[in-house]
């Protein structure tokens, strides 16, 4: 087992915001079982802010902790702010990740951004 920070262990043990929001405004899915990690984020957007955010994650300890942290970081933020959340920031907020687990944090921000872009595309299509 890799050496995880206390924060990673906290989010792994008590992951926040698990689930799927009802009538999601945006959905972002990344990864696949071959690489070992898969994340699906769903968001609810109100007045250009992420009002609610939930996720399902298939993956290792780091992947679960990253999903949980991303959901906390993005909640309440404007879409522009949320799009600025980087993989690096997520890893930093978690007190660092073991070197070979950095790709898990990449998935987290990617899935979030994908959900936001999905929402934006749907909005564009409505206009």
């Amino acid at each position, binding site marked *: 087992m890799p050496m995880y920070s206390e924060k990673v262990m906290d989010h792994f043990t008590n992951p926040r915001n698990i689930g799927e929001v009802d009538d999601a405004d945006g959905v972002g899915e990344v990864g696949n079982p071959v690489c070992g990690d898969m994340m699906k984020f769903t968001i609810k957007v109100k007045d250009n802010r992420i009002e609610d955010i939930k996720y399902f994650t*298939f993956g*290792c300890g780091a*992947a679960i902790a990253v999903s949980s942290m991303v959901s906390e970081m993005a909640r309440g933020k404007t879409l522009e702010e949320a799009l600025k959340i980087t993989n690096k920031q997520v890893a930093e907020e978690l007190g660092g990740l073991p070197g070979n687990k950095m790709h898990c944090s990449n998935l987290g921000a990617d899935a979030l951004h994908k959900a936001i872009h999905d929402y934006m595309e749907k909005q564009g299509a409505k206009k």
Partner: protein
Amino acid sequence: MKEINLDYAAATPVDEKVLEAMLPFFTEHYGNPSSGHNLGEKPRQALEEARAEVGRLIGIEEPGKNKIIFTASASEANNLAIKGIVTAGKRRGNRIITSAIEHFSILNQLRSLEKEGYEIVKLPVDESGLVSPGQLKEALNDQTILVSIQVANTEIGTIQPIKELVAIATEQEIPFHSDATAAAGWIPLNVEALGVDMLTLAGDQLYGPKGAGALFVKRGIRLRPLIEGGIQEQGLRAGTENVPAIVGFGEAARLAYTHLQKRSEQVASFRDKLKESLFKEIPHLHLNGHPEKRLPWNLNISVEFVEGEALLMRLNMEGIYVSSGSSCTSQALKSSHVLDAIGSPPELAQGSLLLAAGLKSREEDIPGITEKMSEVASLLRKMSPLYHQYLKEAQNNANV
């Protein structure tokens, strides 16, 4: 917190009798077995007694004709067998045949030899992990210098039809090496009956100390040592012998030989009951490896919809220690080559758990283990996109 070890494949504790046998060789009998004076006498004798015990465990009644070379590990013994025969150069040819599910101490050195121009044939295995004798026969040609196929697989437990495989190679006078590290002490082994030319085993898999392995070498097989220097171990492994560890290995081999059937039945009984309990209480489990032809201590399952490292970490928090073949638990971030070879789909390989029973595994712990495993599996499934996808599809099918 109560701790339950289900990872005896990684390490076994040293048996107290083994430790007792070892201790005098750190202090009282510290001498060098190569010394000509009295101090070398006791260690030298102990070394030969250990050699006889290890030999007995693999069916050698009369030591002398054959060689048992002590090494520092099974990995080293595997390296001595393959590199030793290749560099001895007594056989002309460049093909080496192995299976796709060997230990890395076989596969990685073969990959190096491949870069040097050797032709490496990795025989596939079927979905239960068995090598086909027919495919071995087809793979042999006049360029073949060695076949190396394990007795049994440590990860999925599958036991190969070694006798049959050896007979095919022997017919064409091709030497056969077999890695018996996972099997020695747990299933009866007789090198003469099997017909193998070389066999690897180690003490730390059978309640002996780490740091002692051995390679059986049949008379007539020529090897070149990996470590050159003095003429310890009949010139095949230079360096002062690790006498305490070898003595421990010998005592562990003696105990394993004496109690083989009882030990084997004991761990198999635990393993079978654990399997039954888990499959009864937890839905969507899959057995990896052969249903019957498997090592008595070995249970390997895939917990569908969840990933192995997360399972391992959650179980660790509950004091239950297991290992997984998922990519996240490996340093190389690759899922197990063994599960890949048996055709396990990626999502199932990622959720694989090796549950390795040991002599201290207790049947009264099975309900507790099952309960924790069940809790952990449902908790992780609740957050798994694969599980929710499955539920949705099941719902849709029900509606159709």
